[in-house]
């Protein structure tokens, strides 16, 4: 029986993008459903009653929630193709550790770059760049975070790249000037079709954020 895979998502979500990339890496056919986060579908509320958030992967009717948990799930179910996590337990632990770092440090800082002003925004920019620099250090001279092959940790971080234009414009700074190696890495990832086809146009993200700011009243 063929697998039925549905992804409840929102095009600008860095978390949703992670799942898109993972599915593309594995060549999995799925139905993409865009959610209006101000008017969530019954299906979303039913499939993620705890958080009511996207992304949600629905595989043969069963939901999986939380982007990194979904990526783990995809890697475990479709295990014969393009492994996303390394096979060595210590390497896997490193990948998970840094993905957790991204979700803790990077996410909060980046949010304030586009919602805050003045000193609060400056602090956020500083924290954001600091976190990126730590990640850049972790990358070192490797082509991808875990070595020669694109994988889990690259997926966890690359999605933020589609938002860099937004951060730079609203925060008035250059990420490339601060983290050139990381930008090289990002461009390398973008050469992969699984990435370039899964990430939205940065200009569209910027327009979307301007709209959000209006709605949230944080202009």
């Amino acid at each position, binding site marked *: 029986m063929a697998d039925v895979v549905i992804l409840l998502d929102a095009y600008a979500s860095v978390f949703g993008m992670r799942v898109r990339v993972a599915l593309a890496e594995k060549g999995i056919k799925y139905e993409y459903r865009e959610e209006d986060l101000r008017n969530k579908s019954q299906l979303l509320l039913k499939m993620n*009653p*705890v958080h009511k958030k996207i992304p949600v992967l629905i*595989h043969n009717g*069963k939901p*999986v*929630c*939380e982007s990194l*948990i*979904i990526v*783990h*799930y995809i890697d*475990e*179910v479709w295990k014969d193709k393009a492994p996303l996590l390394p096979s060595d*337990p*210590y390497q*896997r*632990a490193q990948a*998970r*550790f840094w993905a*957790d*770092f991204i979700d803790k440090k990077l996410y909060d800082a980046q949010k304030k770059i586009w919602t805050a002003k003045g000193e609060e925004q400056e602090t956020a920019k500083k924290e954001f760049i600091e976190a990126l620099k*730590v990640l850049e250090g972790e990358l070192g001279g490797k082509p991808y975070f875990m070595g020669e092959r694109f994988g889990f940790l690259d997926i966890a971080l690359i999605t933020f790249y589609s938002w860099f234009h937004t951060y730079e414009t609203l925060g008035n700074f250059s990420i490339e000037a601060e983290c050139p190696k990381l930008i090289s890495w990002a461009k390398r990832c973008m050469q992969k079709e699984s990435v370039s086809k899964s990430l939205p146009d940065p200009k569209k993200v910027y327009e979307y954020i301007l709209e959000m700011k209006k709605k949230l009243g944080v202009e």
Partner: protein
Amino acid sequence: MAQVTLLGAWPSPFVYRVIWALKLKGVDYEYVEEDILYNKSERLLKYNPVHKMVPVLVHAGKPIAESAVILEYIEETWPQNPLLPKDPHGRALARFWTKFGEDKNPALFGFLRTEGEQQVKATKEGQEQLRILEEQGLGDKKFFGGDEIGMADLEFGWLAWWLEVWSEITGVTLIEAESFPRLHAWIQRFKEFPTIKETLPDRSAMLTHYKDRRATFLALAKS
């Protein structure tokens, strides 16, 4: 077998989570107590430069930090007495509830760090999360992991022991048997489970420790 060392700080529930996992799997390890409040060692700073926190598991000289990451590592390295089911969907659910625990910690611990109006609010917030846990996380299962203790049970293990101590100190009861019958029953099962029962921090020492911590939190909040 390569040396396993656990850097911990008594009586951190994050550390105990790792201890329970190691004990459930029968893994021998050396425990090293770190003074994380007042005097972090060179060793800790070397093994966890990013967060400078415990627990840190060091296996064959290689460090792993963050309790959830450590638990996954332990599960993969020592597969006996598994903490995760075999099927991917079951694993995703176990990880979901483990993450829920991680994310909701501030809301659940809140009542220990607050007083007055703020404490009332924190208690309410904590109970909202516990309601979700009771009805959707645990449901009618014996343990979060099903018939056996699993990763999510270890995540919430603090509810089975630390909560009582904090209740005694604050006078706030987060889990009443009548309002949370399933969680209440799970608490009794978890803390009576042989491996867990023999691996719980001393209650009276905890009372002293947390009275002190609460005083510090409240003083900090005022300043």
